[in-house]
C-alpha cells in the first residue's frame, strides 16, 4: 500500500507538472500560479508528501478536472460494474478449469491430457484484447448475436466475461493440474485406490480437495490480477463502464486526481481480496480450522 502511494506521489508530483494538467490550455501565468497555490503544488516536496498521505488516509483524492465531481465518488460508482465483470469471469474460469484439470489428471500423458494442457497454454498465450476483438468480430459483427460494446445487462456481460476468463482459466488449469498430480503421488491416494475406489473418485473426491490450497491461492491472485490488470484492457475493448475504462479515459484527459483515486482504490480492493483469500485458505484444512476456533 505504502509502495503504491509512493509511486503515485512520485509520478503525479515529481515526474510531471500536475498544475499544467489542471489549468485549461492557453491559461495565463496568473491563472497557473493561482491553481498551483490552490492545490499546494508550490510547497516543498516533504510538505506536499505529508499533505498527500493525509488526503489518502481520509480517502480524499481531489476533484475530477474533467467530470467536475469528487474523484472518489466517481471511482466508487464505477466499482460495481468492474466487480460484476470480475465475478462473472472468475466463475467462468473455475467452471472451465476444474473439469479440464480432472480430465487431464484422470490419465496423465494421454491425448486428452495433452489437449487439456495445450488448451490451457493457449488460454495463457492469447492476449485478452485480441480475444475480445475476435469475439466481437465473430459473435457481434458476423453473427449479430451479441452487442459489440456497452454495459449494464447480461447480454453485454457475456463477451467481456469470456475474454477475461480464458487466460485465467488457462493459468488455473495449469497450476491445478500440477497441484492435483502432486496429490496423486501421496500415500493416501494409493490407499484410496487400494480400497477399490475408481481413479475418477480418487481424483474428484480426494486429490482435488487436497489440492484446494494451492488452487485457492492462485485463484485469489487471479481475482487481484483481473481487478488490477485484466479489466483495464477488456473494459476498453468492450466499452464496459467499469473502473478500468474510467482509468483509460481519465489518462487520455490527463485527469490526475481521478487516476490517483483509481490506482489507490484498486490497490485497497486488491488488499481486501488477498485478505479474503487468506481467510478462505484457513477454512480448507481442518487443522487450521480447529486452530482458528
Amino acid at each position: 500500500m505504502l509502495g503504491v502511494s509512493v509511486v503515485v506521489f512520485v509520478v503525479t508530483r515529481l515526474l510531471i507538472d500536475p498544475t499544467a494538467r489542471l489549468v485549461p490550455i492557453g491559461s495565463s501565468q496568473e491563472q497557473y500560479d493561482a491553481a498551483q497555490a490552490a492545490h499546494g503544488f508550490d510547497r516543498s516536496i516533504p510538505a506536499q508528501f505529508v499533505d498527500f498521505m493525509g488526503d489518502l488516509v481520509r480517502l480524499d483524492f481531489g476533484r475530477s478536472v474533467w467530470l467536475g465531481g469528487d474523484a472518489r465518488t466517481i471511482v466508487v460508482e464505477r466499482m460495481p460494474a468492474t466487480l460484476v465483470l470480475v465475478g462473472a469471469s472468475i466463475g467462468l474460469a473455475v467452471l472451465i478449469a476444474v473439469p479440464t484439470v480432472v480430465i487431464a489428471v484422470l490419465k496423465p500423458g494421454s491425448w486428452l491430457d495433452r489437449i487439456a494442457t495445450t488448451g490451457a497454454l493457449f488460454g495463457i498465450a492469447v492476449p485478452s484484447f485480441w480475444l475480445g476483438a475476435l469475439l466481437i468480430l465473430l459473435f457481434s459483427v458476423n453473427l449479430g448475436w451479441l452487442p459489440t460494446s456497452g454495459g449494464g445487462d447480461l447480454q453485454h456481460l457475456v463477451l467481456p466475461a469470456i475474454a477475461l476468463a480464458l487466460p485465467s482459466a488457462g493459468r488455473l488449469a495449469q497450476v491445478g493440474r500440477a497441484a492435483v498430480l502432486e496429490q496423486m503421488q501421496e500415500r493416501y491416494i494409493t490407499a484410496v485406490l487400494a480400497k477399490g475406489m475408481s481413479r475418477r473418485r480418487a481424483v474428484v473426491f480426494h486429490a482435488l480437495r487436497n489440492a484446494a490450497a494451492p488452487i485457492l491461492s492462485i485463484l485469489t491472485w487471479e481475482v487481484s490480477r483481473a481487478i488490477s490488470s485484466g479489466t483495464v484492457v477488456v473494459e476498453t475493448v468492450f466499452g464496459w463502464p467499469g473502473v478500468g475504462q474510467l482509468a483509460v479515459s481519465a489518462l487520455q484527459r490527463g485527469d490526475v486526481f481521478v487516476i490517483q483515486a483509481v490506482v489507490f482504490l484498486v490497490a485497497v480492493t486488491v488488499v481486501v481480496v488477498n485478505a479474503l483469500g487468506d481467510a478462505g485458505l484457513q477454512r480448507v484444512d481442518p487443522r487450521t480450522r480447529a486452530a482458528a476456533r
Partner: protein
Amino acid sequence: MAALTTPAPGGASVPRRRRWGRPGHRRPPTRSAVVAAAVLVTIAVAAVVGPWFVADDARTVRLTEKLEPPALFGGDWSAPLGTDGLGRDVLARLLMGARVSLEVGLGTVVLAGVVGTGLGVLAGRHRRWGDAVLMRIVDAELSFPGLLIVLAVIGLVGPSKLAIILVLSLVGWMVYTKLARNMVLSLQETTYVEAAETVGCSPRRIVFRHLLPGLMPAVLTVATLEFANAVLAESALSYVGFGIEPPAVSWGLMVAEGQAYASSAWWLVVFPGLGLAATVFALHVLANWMSTRLHPEPAPALVEPPDAEGRAGASEPAPASSPEDESAPLLAIDGLRVVFHTPEGPTPAVQDVSLTVRAGEAVGVVGESGSGKSVTAMALLDLVPPPGRREAGTIRWHGTALAPRDLEGLRGKRIAMVFQDPVAALDPLMTVGRQIAEVLREHRGLSRRAAAERAVELLALTGIPAPSDRARQYPYEFSGGMAQRVVVAMAIAAEPELLIADEPTSSLDVTTQAQILELLDGLRERLGLAVLLISHDLGVVAASCSTVVVMYAGRVMEEGPVDEVLRRPRHPYTRRLIACSPRLDGPRFQFDGSPSAVPDGASVVAAGCPFQPQCDRAIDRCAVELPPMVAVGARSAACWSPDG
C-alpha cells in the same frame, strides 16, 4: 530447486563449471521444445533482419491499394498478408512490430533480470544487510499485480519505448530477486561452495564462478516467462493507446487500428494477434521444458507405459475362466517380474517371485528394504507406482489367472491393504468415518446412513474407544496406533478374503505394535481372513504367521513353515537375517553382524546368486549360475550350497 542443492558427486570436489543442473541428468529436448525454439528463432531472425528490407513497405501509404485481402484470400502476392486501411503492407508491419516486441521483451528482461538477480545475490550473501527490508518490499510488490499501475505511470509521464521498458522493469525485478536470494541461500550450503570458501576463493570468484552458474538455469527459465509477460504487457499498453504510438508499429497497436475495419478486413485484426499468441505460446513451451530440466526427477505419473494394455500380465492367455476352484489356493503368484523403467534404464525390482496363500492362512514375507517385498504386494493390486511395470508372471485368484484389470476389481472388495504409515494413508481432509463409509457404499451398496452406522461398528470392532465420536474426527486427531486401527477397519469393511499388511507396525512403538498384531490375528481367526504380512522384522512374522517367504534383491531365497525355517534355515541369507534379529532369549538388540547391503539393479542383472558376494558358504558355481528353488519336504530354498 531441490535438485540444485544436491551436493556435487564426490563430495568436496569443486566442479569448474555448472551450466545446466546436474551432469548425467541431461534431458534431451522434447519435440515440442524443439519446435518452440525453432518458432522463436524464426521470429527473432525475422524481427532483426526483416525491417531492413521492408521498412519502406511498412510506412508507405498507397491509398489506391488499401484493404487488399491476403494472397490466399483473393489478394495478390505483392502483399501476402494484405494491406491495411492506408494501403500499407501488413506483413511488413508485422515484422516491424516483431522488432518492437523483441526490443521491449529483451530490454525488460535484461534490465529487470540483471538488477533483480544482482539484488537477490546481494541479499543472499549479506544477510544482515538489508535482507529483511528488501524481502518485505519484494513481497509487498509481488502481491500487487498491476498493469494498472504501469498504465498510470506511462500514461502520465508520456509513452515511449524506453518508458515501457523502464516501468515494466520497475514492476518486474522482484521475481528475480526472490528467486536468486532463495537459491543463493541454499546453494551456499552445498558442499562445493563451502569447499570453495574453505579453499579461500575470493568472494567475487565464489559469486561469479560458483553461485551465478548455479543460478543461471532457474533465472533463465523465469526470464523466458517474463519475456512473454513483457511482450503481452507492451501489446496491451499499445492497444489501449499508452504504449507504442503511431507512426511506430506494434502488434497491439495493429490490432487496435485494425478493429476500425474489423467488419470488412478481418486480417488486420487476426494476423498481429496470431503473432503475439505464437510468440507467447512458444516462450511458455520453452520455459516448461527448461523447468523440467531443473527438476531432473521425472514426475512419475508422466512416465506411464506407452500402452497400458501391453503389460505382460495381461498378454498371457488366461485359461478359460473356470468357476472358482474350491481346492485351489486363495492366491497363487507364479514367476512375477516387476521392472522399474528409470531414466538410467530398466531396473528389475521383483524377479521370478512365486508364492501361495491359502484361505485363512497367515503368510509372512521377510526381507530388507529394497528386497522387493512391498512391490510384490503392490503388484497384487495392480498398484505398482510408475515407472514400475509388471512384465511377467501370473496371479491366480481361486485358481483363475487374472489380468491387471481384473485385479483392479478385487481391490478393497476381496483383497484389502493395510499400510506402513497409517496417518499418511488417510485422506487428511475427510473424517475417518466417511473414509470407512466410502468403502461400504462402494462395495456393499449401503445407504449413506447405514454406511455411517456400520463405520462406527467397525471402529468399535478394531478396539477404538468412543467410536461414534471418533468417526467424526479427522486423521490428524489420531495417534499412530489409533490411526492404524482406523486403516484396519477400513480394510475389513467390505469383508475381504485376503488382507495384505505392508509393514503394519513398523512406524509404531513397541507396545502398540503388539496390540495391532494381536488385532490382526484376532480378526483373521474371527473373520476367516487370510493375511499376507510383509515385514523386515522376523520376530513379527514368527509371532503371527504359519508360513514365511524370505526375499532378497527382488528374489525369493527360501520359504517354508515358520518354525522350521527359523529353527533350521537352509539358505545362508536366512541364517544371516536371523542372526541380525534381536533375540528374545539373549540380551536385547544384540547384533552379530549387519545385514548385507541390498545390491543395486546392475549387479542383480549379473548371472549368479545375488547374495553370492556376501555369502560365507559361496562356491564357484554361485557366481555364474542362478540357483533354482529346490523343494525339500514342505520347504524350499534357492541355494547351491545350503545349510543342513
